């Protein structure tokens, strides 16, 4: 039961956080200059976007949920089952970021979900 609770918290906050970070990155635009100073300036510019901070907060919540799961389950179980976030991610990307998800991508995400189910069934 606690595995399920922490996994739900991890998937929702992790996917929400990544969607917020993606939205912030798209606002900044594509990076072409990969020199260290340019990257530092890019990072500072990213931190001035509100969506970035919301994303970081949600990802921090996901991080502590991950730590909690890792304290009572194996890494080889915890990390694969978090792939459930792919379904949530594709759905969120289509709804909030207006990305066009092709049938082939949906099919791939569905296969990933089958894999997650198999890993879940392998639980001790």
């Amino acid at each position, binding site marked *: 039961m606690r595995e399920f609770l922490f996994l739900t918290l991890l998937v929702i906050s992790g996917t929400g956080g*990544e*969607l917020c*970070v*993606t939205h912030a*990155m*798209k606002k*900044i*635009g*594509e*990076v*072409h*200059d*990969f020199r260290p100073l340019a*990257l530092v300036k*890019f*990072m500072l510019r*990213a931190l001035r976007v509100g969506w970035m901070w919301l994303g970081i907060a949600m990802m921090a919540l996901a991080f502590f949920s*991950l*730590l*909690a799961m*890792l*304290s*009572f389950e*194996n*890494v*080889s*179980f*915890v*990390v*694969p089952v978090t*792939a459930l*976030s*792919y379904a949530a*991610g*594709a759905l969120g*990307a289509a709804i909030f*970021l*207006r*990305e*066009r*998800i*092709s049938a*082939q*991508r949906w*099919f*791939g*995400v*569905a*296969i*990933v*979900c*089958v*894999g*997650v*189910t*198999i*890993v*879940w*069934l*392998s639980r001790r």
Partner: protein
Amino acid sequence: MKEAAGFHFKTYLLIAFIAFFAPLGNVLLGKGMHNVGSAKNWAPREVLHILGSIVASGYIWLGIASLLTFFVAYMLVLTWADYSYVQPSSSFAYAVTGVLSYFLLGETISPLRWLGIAVICLGVFVVGRTPPRTTERLPAA
């Protein structure tokens, strides 16, 4: 043509970074949390004690450093590629996590679990054959 090749090269290079540093970070976190232990009754005092142990763990900090490296690579690639492409593509990290868990942590991984991880990778392969961008290109930074 040349621009497209460069576009794909930098995308694949950063996804390779993501696929290595994310699993390494997770394995180090797993090692750290295994040493810290699990909460028994989630009482505030017990949770505070665990948080203190987490902060004092070298494995946790190494894991965080590895995940930060992953995060920077992830942010960079998201400035030009779709989220719905990057996220599943980077899930090759799940197979790497299984291998690192087996060799570095000595975890026993059942054939069923390996099958599940392999199916996840198959799903990643299917997603990876779709174009990296489906939305309009934004002005360069």
